[in-house]
Each structure stands twice: as C-alpha cells, then as structure tokens.
C-alpha cells in the first residue's frame, strides 16, 4: 500500500510539529453491492499506529466512515532525532508500513 507522509525537514527539541499521512486505500464500506447485487465485503484500514522515540505517539481506530484514501493529521512533540514508524493494517490482513526520519536540531 502506498502512503505519503509529511513532516517538517527539521524541528527543535521540545517543539510540537505537525505530521500528515495519506494512505492509498479503497476503504470499502461493506455496504455497497456489485452490479449483480452481491455485497462487496468490507475492507478498510482499521488501525494506524505511530511510534517515535521508543513509544507509541499516536494511534487511530478507523471506521467505515473515514473517506477513501484516508488522510490523518496530528501533532507530536519533538524529543530526539530518530525514525518515526507508521504501521497500519486492513480487514484483508494486509499490512503497510512507512518510516520517516525526524531531525531534531538544538
């Protein structure tokens, strides 16, 4: 699964910065039918977890009411330079992951 993550190029220690993630995913609700009337099974990304600095800094439980290609924006307080790891999983059990580097100056 393709995802785009945006974080500031550099942040200072203690600074609260914005994190944006958009994941390419159909987020099939499970309420739609095919042309022949068969239900299309639900397949949504139901969990997104974000780790940074050795701890979970954000977690979201998504429902079928989140739009296709889910977009989330949240904030994190800068600690030390290091990776920020995003992990998500959908109803089909398909896992996705993305890592970005957080650069803390000063």
């Amino acid at each position: 699964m393709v995802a785009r993550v945006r974080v500031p190029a550099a942040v200072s220690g203690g600074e609260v910065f914005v994190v944006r993630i958009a994941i390419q995913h159909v987020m099939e609700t499970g309420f739609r039918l095919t042309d022949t009337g068969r239900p299309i099974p639900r397949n949504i990304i139901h969990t997104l977890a974000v780790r940074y600095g050795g701890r979970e800094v954000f977690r979201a439980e998504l429902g079928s009411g989140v739009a296709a290609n889910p977009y989330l924006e949240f904030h994190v307080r800068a600690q030390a330079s290091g990776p920020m790891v995003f992990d998500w999983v959908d109803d089909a059990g398909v896992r996705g992951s993305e890592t970005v580097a957080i650069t803390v100056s000063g």
Partner: protein
Amino acid sequence: MACDPALNRRRWLRAVAGVPIVAALPSGARAQMPTAGPAIGSGYAKLLPEITGGRPARAGRVHLEIPELADNGLSVPLRVWVDSPMSADDHVRSITLLAEFNPRPVLLKAHLGPHSGRAQVVTRVRLAVSQRVMAVAQTSDGRYWTAQADVLVTESACLDAS
C-alpha cells in the same frame, strides 16, 4: 469509487429536494430543518453513553470545524481540537468522531497523550445523509467533553445501495 448508476434518480431527487428549501431559510433555521426519519441529534441519546461508558459528557473544550454544506458526503474535511495544556497531568486521552445517521456511527477514534503536544486531529469523513456530527474527547481526569456541528449533505455517500 463510483456509485451504482441505478442510484442516479434517487440521488437527483435527494439533491433537488434539499437545496432550494435550505437556500430559502435564514441561517438560524437550518439546524431545525425537518428530515424524514428521526430528529437531528436524537441519535446521541443512545450513542454517547456507549462511548463514555454511561458517564456524563459536557459540552465544551472541544472544537469541531466541518463545512455547513457538503456537496459530496463521500469526503468531508473535518478538524477537531481540544483546549488542553497536553501536560503529563492534564491532557486529552482520546477523541472520538461520531455521525449519528451513518450505518456505522463511530467514524474514528484517535488516541493522544502528553507526547502529542497539541490535541488536534484533521481527517476526511463520509456522511451518509445530512446530520449532526459530534466529537467526544476524554481528558486525563476521566471526564468527557463534546462539540457538535450540523452538516447538510446534498449528495450522500452511497453507503447503503438500497
């Protein structure tokens, strides 16, 4: 994600049924706009206790920014934030977004903490019909806070295909 073409008539009827009436109303009257089925906001009498575990929830501290009029219910931008210092002893633990008339009313639950620095979440949601959207925040003292906003959806997210 294309809608079933057979729904075009239904969607068109819904669109022309809603728009001119709303345009003629003063802005203060929009919230009371009659809808077929249960009254706007009535769904939360049952929904809210499920989120708070029966504990009381107070209006306040939470801010919900969402368009008053959504042309398309498939993707409605939404911003929610909570007044909180986000310190170790006073922070927001979670924010839950609810849409009472969606087939699954719980849209999203975000878990936050002092490491968040700021209690704000931005996302895009699906709204099946015109309705009242609610945000529920739980603070670290265990209390619940809410904000709500009415959204008029002219073209529904085709969720039910019925």
